[in-house]
């Protein structure tokens, strides 16, 4: 079976003047959204605070739960329906005061408010502000160092700094766009979303390297052609693989989206976006960066 005819010769690189605009607009929207939302909406994991997921045994509505939190003077608590019937999520952000005490008083207030309706606390997360800061800082360091290592490794394996740079610029692009979507959909930036970002980095660099690898091979074979042609040919030759792999992974993510429940809904939205941009960025970010560098900076005009 052959999904993509093997003699496909589509001028991918030639479209870069349009796609550059697409990327620029996407990045602009991403930053704009993040800016307008006043930064990312950090979840309790990073901002510090408290999340409680509760399940009542009999039907009730949000306002009842809200009045229970208001009764103990928590004005900034967010109450929302979550998951199945009779399940609610209570979120108290920042709260530098004693979270432990807040958690206790929420529980007693709820039990009082709903005397004839036993409730189960399905999950409580309570993160002190210092821990949240620590988590954020460490995650940023880890990702930053991973980027550096990727840059060095790719530059070393491809004997050319430009390839490492291209890969990293593409990664930045993917992360910015994913953050943009996270911000646009008002998804909370939690540890799960961080896991998604890490996964996207993995897929994006994988995709980039596969195409760079073909370029590396074709440079030896097609000594007379210029680099733009070599990139175009390489992208076309690997197109079948690109679509098959991305398609397979996308299928898995879509199944997770529909079947794996509310808990990882946000997680999968971010993953779908990251997957698309990760594939796109290899062709339209990583490759043009290498071409630009080679043509203008390293001076090899071949």
């Amino acid at each position, binding site marked *: *079976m*052959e*999904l993509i005819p*093997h003699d496909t010769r589509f001028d991918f690189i030639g479209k870069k003047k349009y796609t550059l605009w697409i990327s620029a607009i996407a990045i602009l929207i991403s930053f704009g959204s993040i800016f307008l939302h006043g930064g990312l909406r950090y979840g309790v994991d990073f901002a510090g605070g408290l999340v409680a997921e509760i*399940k009542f045994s009999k039907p009730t509505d949000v306002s009842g739960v809200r009045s229970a939190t208001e009764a103990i003077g928590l004005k900034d608590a967010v109450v929302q329906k979550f998951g199945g019937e009779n399940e609610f999520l209570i979120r108290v952000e920042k709260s530098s005061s004693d*979270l*432990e005490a807040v*958690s206790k008083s929420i529980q007693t207030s709820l039990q009082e408010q709903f005397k004839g309706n036993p409730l*189960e*606390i*399905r*999950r*409580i*997360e*309570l*993160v*002190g502000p210092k*821990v949240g800061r*620590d*988590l954020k800082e*460490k*995650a940023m*360091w*880890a990702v930053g*160092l*991973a*980027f550096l*290592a*990727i840059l060095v*490794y*790719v530059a070393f394996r491809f004997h050319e700094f430009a390839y490492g740079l291209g890969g990293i610029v593409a990664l930045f692009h993917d992360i910015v766009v994913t953050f943009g979507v996270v911000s646009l959909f008002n998804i909370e930036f939690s*540890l*799960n979303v*961080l*896991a*998604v970002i*890490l*996964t996207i980095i*993995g897929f994006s*660099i*994988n995709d980039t*390297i*596969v195409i760079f*690898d073909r370029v590396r091979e074709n440079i030896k074979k097609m000594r007379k052609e210029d680099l733009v042609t070599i990139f175009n040919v390489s992208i076309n030759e*690997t197109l*079948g*693989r690109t679509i*098959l*792999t991305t398609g*397979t*992974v996308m*299928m*898995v993510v879509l*199944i*997770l989206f529909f*079947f*794996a*429940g509310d*808990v*990882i809904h946000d997680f999968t939205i971010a993953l779908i976006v990251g997957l698309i941009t990760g594939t796109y960025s290899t062709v339209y970010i990583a490759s043009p960066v290498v071409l630009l560098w080679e043509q203008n900076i390293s001076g090899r005009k071949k």
Partner: protein
Amino acid sequence: MLKTLRWKIILYAAITVFAILLLLPTFTSQLPPWFMKIIPTDKIHKGLDLQGGMYLLLTVEGEKAVESYVEQIKNNLKDDLKERGIPVGKLETEKPDRIVLEFSGAKEKVDNLLSQRFTMLRELSPSSGAGGIWKTQLVLDSKETEYVKKRAIDQALEIIRNRVDQFGVSEPEITLQGTDRILVQLPGIQDPQRAINLIGQTALLEFKLVDEEGNIDEALKGNIPPGDVILYQRSVDSQTGAVRKIPFLLKEKTLMTGEFIKDARVSLDSQFHEPYVSMEFTDIGAKLFEQITGANVKKRLAIILDNNVYSAPEIRERIAGGRAQITGRFSTEEANDLAVVLRSGALPAPVKILEQRTVGPSLGQDSIHKGIVSMLISAALVVLFMIVYYKFAGVIADVALVLNIILTLAALAIFRATLTLPGIAGLVLSVGMAVDANILIHERIKEELRFGKTVRAAIDQGYHRAFSAIIDSNLTTLISGIILYQFGTGPVKGFAVTLSIGILANIFTAVYITRVIFDYVSLRPGVKTLSI
């Protein structure tokens, strides 16, 4: 060629069988005892997000331990100065690690005392003022400060371990994180609040005398007699739930603490059938208690736990035998927990909860169930897709995928790593890359076949050409996985572990295992076509 191929097949089959054996304990608990003796693995540990339970990150307030240590030194210094007849004007502690001393008379005497008995103090800026009065500041040596903090953490770790052991949780994990944090993980716990109370309670038991001469009403207005403190007895009305606070005016000096407790048990009051906690002191404690009670007959002795007065009975006579009781309106559970904390001793400093995550057992079950269902559906679709698209070669790829997952899980089992939700994300990424590796190889083989190469040559070239892309992409991901593991915290680590192991398994299964199968199939005589 065929001979080395045979050896390869035997080797790979052996690895596969070994991995499956390692995984058996995870999937069934009904294994014969001799089997468990041979196989070094246990079940794969599920993280608390998957099985429910409580995750607690505590910090020990080391400064408080230093403060109380300095306070203790000050008291000793006071006694020593008095003993030597040195007139003292002022002797106070200043937070966090200073003692301010004013005295008159011979400086040498004090210097002597300090250098003999208080080597842990350093003297700052002594100055003599008018009338032969010396002012000086004594600071706790920084090495000593560090030592006190470290000891506080070590003790706290030990005590918390002790308490959790007596609480009865299966497979608790209590570890030191960094220099001043304690991580407590309690899987499958039913009553998180009770566990928090038990672990977090400082449980400092003190005996202080009630100041019988002092006027409590005056003291409440702010005129506390020197050397006294006000502490409260909290009593909760069981009917209305209202909290009453009864003030007590006490002598500040602590006569005895809970460090002399040998044992503490719950007993039942024979008259009211109310539980109370009876304590037994060590020999030294018993003597001390006898002395204290003997010297203070007809006075009231307050029993104080973490600055709450529990009771203040009158001492009727000297109490020998080293026993005392704490009464209060306890439920059996409360009395039981109190006995546990008294037995395991007081924390050297208060602990603060930095992070708490509790997942109810039902939610953990739910996420596992939904996770498994969607994983199975997607696995089935991927497997099916590979067969539809690549026919027989797809079957080979599927074998590699399944093997990849088996090897990764087996490695998790043998390294006793914990499988968490982010860990599953890492596994999914590595499986995605395994699919990719197979697709890369197959597309390459197809390409070579299109050029008119023979099956043997196409397989050879296909693997050879795809190898660099697979190795480079996998190694890049592996390198970032290792860095994430090194520098990341909890969830990032969980992701990195499964990803890194998955990548290693991937290189092995996608490149070497599939190759052996391809070779085996194509080396048979008369093979002209490849189903790919």
